[in-house]
């Protein structure tokens, strides 16, 4: 009954480090999404995935890598973190032909 979960909820990392944010959903939804929320910008799409092994770029993909080997997991990796990637990251999923997306609780990432 977990729905969609994200881990960690809070993360502090240093510039240049690699960090991976995890997202897991229990609904077997086909679509999964990663967004970042920044003051003055709302929610911006980083990457999305239509199914396992199918991913595509969103509005702000630079500096991020995603993978989706299993339907339920959609990790987001910052290969070399920069201060501009300090943000709150939300994972979302949708399925069953509907366009409504269900969001996780978010990960607050700080890059020092």
């Amino acid at each position, binding site marked *: 009954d977990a729905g969609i979960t994200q881990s960690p909820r809070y993360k502090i990392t240093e510039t240049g480090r690699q960090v991976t944010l995890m997202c897991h959903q229990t609904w077997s939804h086909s679509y999964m999404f990663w967004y970042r929320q920044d003051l003055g910008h*709302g929610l911006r799409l980083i990457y999305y995935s239509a199914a396992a092994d199918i991913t595509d770029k969103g509005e702000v993909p630079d500096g991020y890598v995603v993978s989706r080997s299993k339907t339920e997991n959609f990790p987001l990796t910052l290969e070399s973190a920069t201060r501009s990637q300090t943000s709150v990251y939300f994972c979302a999923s949708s399925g069953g032909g509907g*366009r*409504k*997306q269900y*969001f*996780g609780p*978010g990960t607050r990432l700080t890059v020092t």
Partner: protein
Amino acid sequence: DQQVKQNSPSLSVQEGRISILNCDYTNSMFDYFLWYKKYPAEGPTFLISISSIKDKNEDGRFTVFLNKSAKHLSLHIVPSQPGDSAVYFCAASDASGAGSYQLTFGKGTKLSVIP
């Protein structure tokens, strides 16, 4: 260029009165619109949606109005309650190709309901 615009960053309303949140869009291919509500330190939660074949959808205290000719939608909350204090995001989707499952979000409006 922003395709979904929420021009009011904040709105304050007295408890019991009506809250009206506005949203404008520029992409004429958008055919489905959603409102999400977000509390601090939580993810956005779905509130209400409307298809472009309708001009109104109601769910309890929440009503969304769509004016396609003006490319404008609004969310009405009546009566407003202190628990409605949150950031509200307008989102839109178009039915063409890959865009049909993507949502484009506005920047949000922070609603404060004053007791």
